[in-house]
């Protein structure tokens, strides 16, 4: 039987002298040899680029790969400037430990906020360009000719006068000894040869053979398994548990509690995960969970509703005098909107594997932020960061769940330390559902007054609800206003003379977190549904109405994507009988996005027939990956809009698995047409923008079909779809 054999020895912990570190000689019980960092044979020309004598170019990527294509995209950008042979490029994750030791040489290791490409494009391109210059300089020095007389084609340096040629692999060692250039010129995107072309992703061939070792697939000699149950009521602690009751269970090794400030948990360790899970299910636990036991959806809704009514809350934007304008009366509109909690439900449940020894910790984990994982391991153990390695694995989904909070890493380090053996800790799907870092719950009250031309003269948006920053980065909250929570509202592109956007922060005991398209998703629903209401109140076409509001100079890209989806979807022309459409535009993650959603009503149920989407992300590195990300973002948004809802009762989450937190499947897939229209001059994200305009475009289509305005989600609870 051929067991999957993770390439554990590749990531030994010794930092080679060439890498500027010390050979620490950690002993690892991995069956691996102590060797200098052997991951990439060849010479490190700079931190990003290792070139082997056979011209293989290993490009180190600091961001995580969860299928969004950042690994391939960043390699394309490096290779573009390096001018190497693309067929010889191999990606490698940069070592987190080396990163820490080398003073964060790879920039950000965080992968979120659709930042993977746009947040690193500048320095990775410079790394490629600098290495190219050094390689050319090395060849020129060997030939004793000016570097300016040399050209490069696919990793081969040629001297114009003599016709002599050298391959990158032949000069890499000499190039590495040169001082890096202080400044480099980057290629204009219009001259790109590798970037900008549809390119097959590196990770796909292995994925179709089931070869990638996800964190949950790591198998170490002597490894045991841990199952965990956290207090169902958030923040509750373990009062007691009865280990004796389960000590005779097959495979049982140990039960322990992991109480900390965030809450309590019990863990059972056994020889297999199945044994650990079964023993845990039989473990009697008494929780100390009184503090939040009476919280429910009803109490949370009342709390947020009070925020909508509150007299004085801090404003994020105040132009003119909205309240005076609204007080004048005339044609006004007002509506309250609400969205529920949403879970990430990554397909790979939360898990992590750790080896803890006296002077070193290794963790294998699916992480969107391996530095945060290292910090969590350090906090959980007291081990210095320099003695910790985070083995970054391919992620089985991330969507924001695996960035900010790092509970599995902290938990597994504590368990491995306590029992002195390699441990893999796995959350069951039920734990994943009930202990998420949920998309925040918010409500919005929208109010506007329309002028004689039907356009709004005043627009007041009040948001009440949770702030993610309250949980993750309170310093981002200024004078009570979390601008992140109000993204797309305080900075909306519509020209309105009097605008007020204010925020009643109402945090609950249910932890919130980043979530694919978070904020653009909720705020898109609020803003783009309400502008549709205004259009109808004014008796105007929703597309033309938006056009009139998008005439400002800073709205030109919003207008361009809006026009494109309207044209491609045939807006204004007759639809097939029984079909209806809705439109929305919403910039997010520095990209400009618009969508038309076409639906039909079948026996009272909504069927989404077609989505036309346009995005201006400034530049496009791998067009096929961008299209895939938009498709994925649309599915994510449709799932949330149609059926996603986490509810709270008795202080805890009611849902537990995919039967009560259902997902969109292939039978509900609409046709998707994506238009990429990069206009240049800026770098926008692509992972999350696909989410932004979908909920409002769909709900606007439902209004067109039924006259029913959807102001709370999901559609499931309005009877508009069945589970």
């Amino acid at each position, binding site marked *: 039987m051929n067991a*999957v054999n993770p390439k554990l020895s590749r990531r030994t912990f010794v930092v080679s002298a060439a890498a500027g570190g010390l050979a620490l000689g950690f002993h690892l019980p991995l069956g691996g040899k102590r060797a200098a960092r052997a991951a990439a044979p060849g010479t490190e020309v700079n931190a990003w680029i290792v070139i082997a004598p056979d011209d293989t170019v290993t490009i180190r990527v600091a961001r995580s790969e969860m299928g969004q294509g950042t690994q391939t995209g960043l390699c394309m950008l490096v290779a573009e400037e390096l001018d190497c042979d693309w067929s010889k490029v191999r990606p490698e994750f940069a070592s987190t430990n080396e990163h820490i030791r080398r003073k964060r040489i790879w920039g950000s290791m965080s992968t979120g906020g659709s930042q993977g490409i746009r947040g690193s494009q500048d320095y990775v391109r410079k790394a490629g360009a600098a290495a190219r210059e050094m390689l050319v300089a090395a060849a020129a020095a060997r030939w004793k000719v000016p570097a300016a007389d040399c050209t490069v084609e696919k990793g081969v340096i040629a001297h114009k006068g003599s016709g002599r040629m050298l391959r990158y692999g032949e000069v890499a060692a000499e190039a590495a000894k040169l001082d890096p250039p202080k400044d480099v010129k980057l290629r204009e995107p219009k001259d790109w040869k590798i970037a900008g072309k549809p390119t097959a992703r590196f990770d*796909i061939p292995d994925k179709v053979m089931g070869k990638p070792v996800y964190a949950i697939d790591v*198998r170490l000699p002597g490894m045991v398994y841990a199952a965990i149950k956290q207090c169902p009521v958030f923040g509750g602690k373990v009062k007691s548990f009865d280990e004796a009751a389960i000590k005779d269970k097959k495979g049982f090794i140990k039960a322990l509690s992991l109480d900390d400030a965030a809450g309590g948990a019990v863990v059972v360790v056994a020889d297999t995960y*199945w044994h650990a899970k079964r023993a845990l299910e039989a473990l009697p636990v008494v929780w100390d969970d009184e503090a939040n036991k009476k919280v429910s959806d009803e109490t949370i809704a009342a709390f947020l509703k009070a925020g909508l009514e509150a007299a004085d809350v801090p404003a994020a934007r105040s132009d003119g005098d909205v309240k005076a304008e609204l007080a004048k009366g005339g044609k006004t509109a007002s509506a309250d909107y609400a969205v529920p909690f949403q879970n990430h439900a990554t397909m790979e449940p939360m898990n992590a594997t750790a080896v803890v020894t006296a002077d070193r910790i290794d963790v294998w984990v699916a992480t969107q932020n391996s530095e945060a994982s290292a910090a969590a391991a350090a906090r959980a153990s007291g081990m210095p960061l320099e003695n910790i390695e985070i083995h970054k694995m391919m992620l089985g*989904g991330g969507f924001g769940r695996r960035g900010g909070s790092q509970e599995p890493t902290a938990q597994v380090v504590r368990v491995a330390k306590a029992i002195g053996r390699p441990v893999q800790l796995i959350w069951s*799907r039920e734990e994943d559902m009930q202990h998420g870092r949920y998309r925040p719950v918010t409500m919005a009250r929208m109010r506007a007054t329309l002028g004689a031309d039907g356009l709004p003269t005043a627009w007041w948006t009040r948001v009440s609800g949770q702030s993610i920053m309250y949980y993750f980065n309170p310093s981002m909250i200024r004078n009570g206003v979390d601008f992140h929570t109000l993204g797309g509202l305080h900075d909306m592109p519509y020209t309105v003379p009097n605008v007020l956007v204010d925020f009643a922060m109402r945090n609950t005991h249910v932890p919130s977190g980043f979530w694919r398209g978070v904020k653009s998703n909720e705020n898109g629903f609020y803003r783009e549904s309400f502008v549709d209401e205004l259009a109808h109140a004014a008796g105007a076409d929703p597309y033309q109405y938006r056009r009139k509001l998008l005439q400002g100079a800073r709205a030109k890209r919003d207008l361009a994507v809006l026009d494109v989806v309207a044209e491609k979807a045939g807006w204004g022309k007759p639809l097939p009988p029984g079909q209806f459409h809705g439109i929305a535009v919403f910039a997010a993650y520095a990209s400009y996005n618009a969508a038309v959603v076409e639906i039909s009503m079948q026996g009272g149920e909504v069927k989404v027939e077609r989505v036309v989407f346009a995005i201006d992300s400034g530049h496009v590195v791998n067009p096929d990956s961008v299209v*895939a990300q938009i*498709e994925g973002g649309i599915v994510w948004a449709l799932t949330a809009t149609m059926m996603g809802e986490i509810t709270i009762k008795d202080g805890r989450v009611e849902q537990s698995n*995919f*039967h009560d937190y259902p997902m969109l499947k292939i039978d509900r897939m609409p046709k998707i047409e994506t238009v990429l229209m990069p206009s240049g001059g800026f770098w926008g994200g692509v992972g999350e923008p696909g989410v932004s305009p979908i909920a409002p475009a769909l709900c606007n289509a439902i209004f067109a079909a039924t006259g029913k305005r959807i102001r709370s989600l999901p559609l499931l609870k309005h009877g508009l779809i069945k589970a």
Partner: protein
Amino acid sequence: MTRLNVNGRVVEVDVEPETPLLWALRDTLGLTGTKYGCGVALCGACTVHVDGAATRSCTLTVQDTEGKKITTIEGLAPDGKLTKVQEAWIAEQVPQCGYCQVGMMMAVSALLREKPRPTDADIDAAITNICRCGTYARVRKAIHRAAQA
């Protein structure tokens, strides 16, 4: 000891008879290509073939598979040559995170054996796997591509 026939080889596993096949494959036999997603046969990440039929291994006990032929992703292309489903998956660049794709391809391979030219309605009825990354549009295209290969 339970005797299992996995990917053309007979192996003995020392697990309780009621152990789900999924965990015997992953933890006892080291065949980690088959994934845990929900544990209650709702998501399809653990799909394997049992006597050729797509079956969710998280709720199937080891004792129920005795005498039956089990195929996992590791045995889908036994001679190292990709199947037409796998080739179509690469051509259409289907996987994103990839975690659900093994189960997805196992389900599709069984469908194509039964219905070599499936209609969209056949696909909708047979492919009930969950993909959180949202690759469904490409899954559909790749199924049709594989059917025509």
